[in-house]
Structure formats: C-alpha cells, structure tokens
C-alpha cells in the first residue's frame, strides 16, 4: 500500500542552521513523504491521521502531549544521536509509540573528540595557536610548557561503547587506564585495553591525571561530579566532559578551576548550550569549550540519518525496530 511504502513522516524544517540537511533530503524522499511542521499546522485535519513517524533532528520537532494526541497513528519516533534525556520516554510509551536513537553512528566521532579535547587541553593547542598568530608575538618563550599525555593516567567514567573506544585510543598513547562503570566489563575486554576497574569512583578520581566523562545523563548521573568529586581529583588533573553538561555541577566546577582545585577542563557539553555570554566558564584561561561537536562530522550525520530511516521503516511496518530505546 502506498502509504506504507512512503510513510508520512513529520520533520521540523529543511535547511537553515538547524533543519534537516538539504543533502539528506533526496535519500529521505526516496523512503518517506516528508511533512514539515509548518505544513502540518496549516493542514492538521488532513494530515494528522496520516503521519506514522517523526524524524527528530536535533530535538525538533518538540514532542509533547499535545503533539502525541494529535497524531493517532504515530508508530515511531527516530531521534538523531544517542542521548534521549530530552524525551519523556514514559509519556511517549503511554501512547504506544516506539523510540529509536542512533548509538553506533556517534560512538567513533565522540570518542575521537574526547581524545582531541584531552590532547588539546594537555598540550595547550588553543592557547598556542593564539600566541602563534597574535599581532603582539615577537618570539616563542622557552619555558612555555604543557602536560604529558604518554605515560599519564586516564580515568574513564562510563565504559560503554564510547568509553571503551576512548580506552582503545588512549592505550595507543601509552596511557594507564582506570575505569568506573555501573557494571564491570569482562576480563578479555579489560585486558585488551589494559584497563583497571575501580569499583569506587573515589579511587579513580584520586589516581587520574585526566578524567573523562562518557556516561548517559540519567537521574543517577545528574551532578555526578560535584564539589566532593572535584576535591578528590589531583590538583594537576584535567576534567574532560563529552557526556552532558548536567553530569557536572557547573558552579562547583567554576570554583574548582578558579581556585586550583583541579588544573583545567575541556568541555564539549555544557548546560545550557550555548552558555550565557557572561558565564564564568567562558572567561577562565584553563578551560576549553567546543560547541557540542561530538558527532559533528558529515560521515556521522549521514550514518545517523540512515539509521533513523531504518528504524522508521521497521516501526511503521510493525517489525522489530533497530536501536529501539526501551523505557
């Protein structure tokens, strides 16, 4: 039946700075009848029963009770990226709608970015570039030094797919690896990357030169790193966050950085994003911040889109949904 071959799929908008990518549209239109939110709101009566799927690209369209109630035949929401902390999974489930994310498409580029941030922070790449290009620079000072990566200890908090890929990369830099996770990994996995399990977070914090956060955001991980945890870290240590801003108590982090409780931080994520322009984190010399680039490569975004298409096609046909997120 035509409608199942080209399921009506709701999207926010095409193009611009935050819409579905124009160069993805051709592929999407091979599989879906795309309906933008604008078209939907202008033609609700006609379209509301037809829409079977939502292609959620960077949190849009926003899925709330109103929208769910207006889409009686909605079967599946495909979310780009791995994080689903912005979705009310219980609410969506109560409408009998399935949710899928894209965990594997993001894991490599996110692990890569974690390494990029750790290296950039330790070797002062951003500061160094500023010196190299500054109109005021006349010479390079001999005693301008960074921190060593090789031989240092990396503590990985959250050893899921992304955390494990970080471990694989860090091992090649001759780093010692500690990790903390809800569940311990099997021995073969640990040995393959030389990772030592720390059942107590405190041990990891005290023993690490670099601490990287690669957990989901959940009620258990909200403000996982607060004043106490920062004080347990070495004063020479660096915190790297590639999870979600809310995993860290940002005010406590500012204090810790200002007072030398830890040495530096490198953050791909903050809360909110972007931070208000007068936020203290933007003005500290020992912080680097990137604008949530974890999965920001053309390859990853293309793969995410493909994964989402697969999930939607399965969902509207009543088949098992790849990458389904269970409540």
């Amino acid at each position, binding site marked *: 039946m035509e409608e199942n071959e080209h399921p009506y799929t709701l999207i926010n908008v095409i193009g611009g700075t935050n819409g579905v990518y124009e160069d993805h549209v051709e592929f999407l239109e091979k599989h879906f009848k795309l309906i933008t939110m604008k078209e939907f709101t202008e033609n609700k009566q006609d379209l509301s029963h037809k829409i079977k799927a939502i292609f959620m690209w960077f949190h849009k369209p926003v899925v709330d009770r109103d929208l769910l109630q207006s889409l009686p035949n909605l079967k599946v929401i495909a979310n780009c990226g791995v994080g689903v902390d912005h979705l009310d999974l219980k609410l969506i489930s109560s409408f009998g709608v399935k949710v899928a994310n894209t965990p594997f498409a993001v894991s490599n580029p996110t692990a*890569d970015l974690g390494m990029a941030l750790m290296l*950039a922070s330790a070797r002062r790449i951003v500061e160094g570039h500023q010196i190299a*290009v500054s109109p005021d620079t*006349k010479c390079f000072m001999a005693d301008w030094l960074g921190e060593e990566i090789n031989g240092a200890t990396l503590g990985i908090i959250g050893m899921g797919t992304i955390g494990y890929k970080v471990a*694989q990369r860090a091992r090649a830099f001759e780093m010692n690896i500690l990790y903390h996770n809800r569940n311990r990994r099997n021995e073969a996995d640990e040995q393959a990357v030389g990772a030592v399990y720390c059942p107590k977070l405190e041990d990891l914090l005290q023993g690490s030169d670099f601490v990287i956060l690669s957990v989901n955001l959940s009620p258990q991980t909200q403000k996982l790193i607060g004043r106490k945890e920062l004080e347990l870290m070495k004063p020479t240590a660096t915190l790297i966050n590639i999870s979600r801003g809310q995993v860290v108590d940002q005010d406590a982090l500012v204090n810790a950085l200002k007072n030398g409780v830890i040495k530096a931080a490198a953050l791909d994520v903050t809360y909110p994003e972007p931070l208000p322009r007068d936020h203290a984190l933007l003005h500290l010399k020992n912080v680097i911040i990137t604008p949530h680039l974890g999965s*920001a490569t053309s390859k990853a975004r293309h793969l995410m889109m493909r994964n989402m298409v697969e999930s939607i096609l399965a969902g509207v046909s009543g088949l098992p949904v790849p990458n389904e997120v269970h409540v």
Partner: protein
Amino acid sequence: MQDSKLPLLLIHEVGGTRGVLEAHVPFLKKHFQLITMKEFLESKEYYCAQVQAIYSWWHKPVIDRELLKSLPNLKVISSAGVGTDHLDLKLISGFGVRIANTPHAVHSTTADIGMALLLAAARRLVEGCQIAVSPDTGYFSNNWLGEEVTGATLGIIGMGSIGYKIAQRARAFEMKILYHNRNRRKEDEEQAVGACYCGAIEDLLQQSDFVMLVVNLTPRTYKLIGKKELQLMKPTASLINISRGQVVDQDMLVEALQTGVIKSAAMDVTYPEPLPRDHPLLKLKNVIITPHVGIKTHKTTFMITEDAVSNVLAALNGLPMPSEVFPD
C-alpha cells in the same frame, strides 16, 4: 659557591626565550659549573681553556668557527632535542669535538603533538572554541561539521621512530596507514601497525585524507612538499607538519589553502619561527599553528636535560655517548 672541581658547561642563558629552563638549573649544577655566554664573553681569557662542554638549548648558543676556535678544550656539544640541522656537524667534528642529541626523550611526545594537531584540524577545534566563547554566539548550528578521523587514511611521510609512534596511535583510531620512507620497514613492523608502504610519494599523496610530515630537514627533504605535491593531495585532505618549516614550500602552501587545493593545514613548525606578523598563514581560517611545542612538556624537557647530561658525562669520561651524532 659552586664546587670548582666540577667541569665547566657553557650555556646560552637561563630562562628567557632561548635559555635553559630555570627548573633544570639545580639538576645541572649537581654535575657542572654553569657559565652563560654573557659571563663567558665578559671574562673570555679566564674561562676559555676551562670550558669542556656546551649544552645547546633551542639552537643557542650559536656554534660557529669563532666560538670553536676560542674553546681549545671543548670536548662535546650536547644538543637538546633530535634535530641537528642548526649545527654544522662537519665544522664541529673538524675541531675534534663530539656531538650528541637527545632522540629518545622526544619520540612519544612529538607523536602526541602530531596526533593532537591532526585531530584539531579534522574536528576544527580552534574555530569551534572561538565559536563557543564568542560574544556574538547566540546558538550552536547543527550544520557546522568537521571530518571523521576514525577509518580515514593517514599518509605518514618519514617513518622513523616518531613516525612509527604516530602509526601506533593512528591505528587505534582504525585509520588506514600509508607511509613513505627512505627505507622500507621490516614486514613485522609494518604489520604491527597495519602500515602499507608507498614506494612513490605520489601514491601516498593521492590516497590520503591526512598527510603527516615526520622527516628530518636535509637537502633532500627541503621543500619536499611543493606545488606539485599539494596538487596531488585530495581537495578534502589536511597537511600536518611536525618536521621543520622548510620541508614545505610555504608560499605554495598558502596558495593551496586559499584556493581549496587542500582543505586545511596544522603545523607546529614554520619558517621562520615566529612568522612575520603580516604573513598570510596567520590569517587563514583553515590553518592551525602552534609555537613549536613538539617537545614542550615539563616531563619531556626534563628528560631531554637528563639525557643531555648523560651524553656530556660520557664524553668527558672518554666513554661512548648514548646518542652520538656523526656528520653524514
């Protein structure tokens, strides 16, 4: 008052831009009586016969015929780091003076910087940081993208010790590794990092997403990367230079970057250092430059001094030096 029985070690200065690091002075003073060039020049006649060794840090002091002639009892020049292109090895050898560098201390640290620059270039880290803190930033665009490193092809030009450590690191990112070297490495070494030898540099240039320069500067590698080589590279490729600025034809590089012949470049080295403040490389958005920080960590700089001291002590005791350098 320092123990005057300790041998006299000539250095350029302490601190400043080219001086031996202040943090290293206590260690040096355990083994040597230190004298700076300034002190030496002020009392040349008193010191000249006593100087047995020179510690060259960041290419200073300048070793020329005049200096060599004035130091009749000079036995050894210990140069920090691995590059010796700033020394006239034949000239120095002609005076019966031995030369040493400190290659081992630098390998891992320089490989780390090579990867740091590769990742920063690929993911547009410096630009991204500017956006994150800019007063004009109101929101983050989701269409602001970089290049994927995992699974991409890295072409390493110069597979010595540093190049090999880069290959080890890149392999962990599941990168496909091509390499070009004067001599091909042994099969088991290639297999250990999954590196594929390219006898012709053209093949490496045409297939690589990232090209990393890890060669010494010699007459053969001078301007190794020029207009022809840049045009052979993919228009989506990045050039990473951790060798010496003169390995690249800088004017051709500027043109290539301005016209999209290659995508971006990241360099720890330029010619000269620093570049003149009006140089076009400083203004290009697709360029990252670091101020020659390849070995600049607390740990490595100290290891370099330790190694340099070992070399000097060996020479003064008439023993083989751990890392002696001979003229070609």
